[in-house]
């Protein structure tokens, strides 16, 4: 039996639009994953605490507020501090290409723009996440 993937979908920052995050959460569930959804207005500390307690394989951030250049690195830094550096950090939102490049150099995974078919996200997680021990 293969291990179930557990993914945290989080919505940091001040903007109140979580439609995108919910659509992704449902798509991942429909692909057989267990999705921990924590709701709006999460701080990086809240996100990483939840990721740690839930022992997730990956963390997906939905960021539309424009604060991605502070939020992603902050979450990344805290994940490393908590020993979660081997977990996938990915995201979605409207983020300029050069910023994406900068973030990926820091170890952030793929960032999906608006209009990405959800299947692309599902495939990416399946390809990227370690599925080591059962």
């Amino acid at each position, binding site marked *: 039996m293969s291990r179930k993937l557990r993914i945290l979908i989080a919505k940091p920052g001040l903007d109140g639009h979580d439609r995108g995050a919910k659509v992704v959460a449902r798509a991942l569930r429909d*692909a057989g994953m267990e*999705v921990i959804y924590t709701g709006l207005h999460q701080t990086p500390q809240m996100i990483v605490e939840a990721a740690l307690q839930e022992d997730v394989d990956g963390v997906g951030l939905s960021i539309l507020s424009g604060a991605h250049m502070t939020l992603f690195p902050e979450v990344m830094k805290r994940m490393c501090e908590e020993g979660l550096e081997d977990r996938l950090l990915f995201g979605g939102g409207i983020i300029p290409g050069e910023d994406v490049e900068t973030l990926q150099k820091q170890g952030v995974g793929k960032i999906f723009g608006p209009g990405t078919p959800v299947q692309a996200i599902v495939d990416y997680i399946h390809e990227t996440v370690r599925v080591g021990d059962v």
Partner: protein
Amino acid sequence: MTGPPGAGKSTLVEKMTALFRKDGQTVAIVAVDPTSPYTGGAILGDRIRMSSLFCDPGVFIRSMATRGSSGGLAFRTREVCDLLDAFGKDVIIVETIGVGQAELDVADTAQTTVIVLVPESGDGIQAMKAGLMEIGDLFVVNKSDRDGADRLMVEIQMMLDLRPQCEGWRPGVMRTTASAGEGVDELVRQIQGHRDYLKKYGILGRLRKDNVRSAIVDLVRQRLEEKFWENAGIRSVLDRLAEEAAGGKMSPYQAFERLLEAREQNGMKPSTNKEQSDHVR
């Protein structure tokens, strides 16, 4: 904490936890949500109502999906609770999935079972009598900011009058408005009251034994069933028999007997004799 979907279980858990923390107790929360039987996936959303607790190092929250367990908890919820206990958590709160009448595993797992209802549950209370209502140590009418809370309280009291009384404990019935934090202090008091009662009457040891007992029974059920299906060939025999039974050539009972025979003949050594096979659905 158990009760119908959306009754406010998670909201109550958050507010209760805040009170336990004020009192200096550490808290672990195990929140269960259902796995989709079609996709095997799950959305675990109980945390949405608990975000005020995320950064408190005295609170640990773990979400679990049922993964095919039908009793309202996950197969491993009990073990997770044992671990959290071993880690020294003072209070362990288990939130079941939103239940109907039949998902009652929590009663064998928890020391105190709290049933959370809402005013609208009144209509269903007759139907619930034969299940959910029998396992409650405490009853909460949440969302009592809405009409009908008083009537439901009376109905629950009447139902409790008919229930076999047990010495030393009559379940408390109380109203809360979890979203506003109202009545939660009384709930916490009554939970502690129930714990005092369990101690005073020496019931904790018996509960522990019942708990372990049903853990063993669960294991028998799981392991025997796993064993039964572990030979690759057995599934194709099942397919063939199902087709024949669907075509009217035999009943499911006959198909079941044939499945057992096929398993024995194929050198799929049966782990069950006839009697035990009743456990292997």
